[in-house]
């Protein structure tokens, strides 16, 4: 396990542990060039809530991010945010329903008011589109 790895500490070439900081870091909340772990941050990171240039993670953030809720320039995964996104948009806010009743029910669950039509056949929950 690496020691330190906190803000201000010098990055190591290889860091493994809790919140390690290094060129290659594996662990929980690792930060480095290549990261594998939970909440990693770095150039390449694989894990949960990763942040870095390349991420494969859940809730990853980086230039390249693969995972759930990823954020980055290139992202792949549900709910990803980035310039280039490869993902499935499974947010119920993005779904349209074939009946107004279903959309109204979904609106109640989402905590918004009303419904609006989407095309000729479908209804979406909430008065306004998601932003």
């Amino acid at each position: 396990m690496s020691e330190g790895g906190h803000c201000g500490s010098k990055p190591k070439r290889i860091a493994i542990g809790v919140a390690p900081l290094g060129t290659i870091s594996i662990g929980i909340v690792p930060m480095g060039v290549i990261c594998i772990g939970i909440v990693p941050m770095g150039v390449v990171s694989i894990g949960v809530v990763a942040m870095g240039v390349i991420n494969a993670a859940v809730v990853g953030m980086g230039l390249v991010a693969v995972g759930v809720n990823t954020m980055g320039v290139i992202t792949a995964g549900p709910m990803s945010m980035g310039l280039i996104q490869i993902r499935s948009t499974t947010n119920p806010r993005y779904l349209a329903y074939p009946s107004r009743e279903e959309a109204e029910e979904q609106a109640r669950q989402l905590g918004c008011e009303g419904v609006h039509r989407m095309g000729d056949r479908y209804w979406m929950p909430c008065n306004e589109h998601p932003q």
Partner: protein
Amino acid sequence: MAGSHGKPKQAMFNTKAEAEAAAPGFGCKGAHQMGEMWMVCDKHGEMDHKGSH
């Protein structure tokens, strides 16, 4: 079509091409941008508000 039941469909996509491709399934054409994402149909359907906008 109100009153019918079926599976919900995804109406918002990452790319314009995806939204345009899905538009016929909603009985419309084209796509429009919503923030960083794209929704099916050239423009919003009829808004049916049950409250203030």
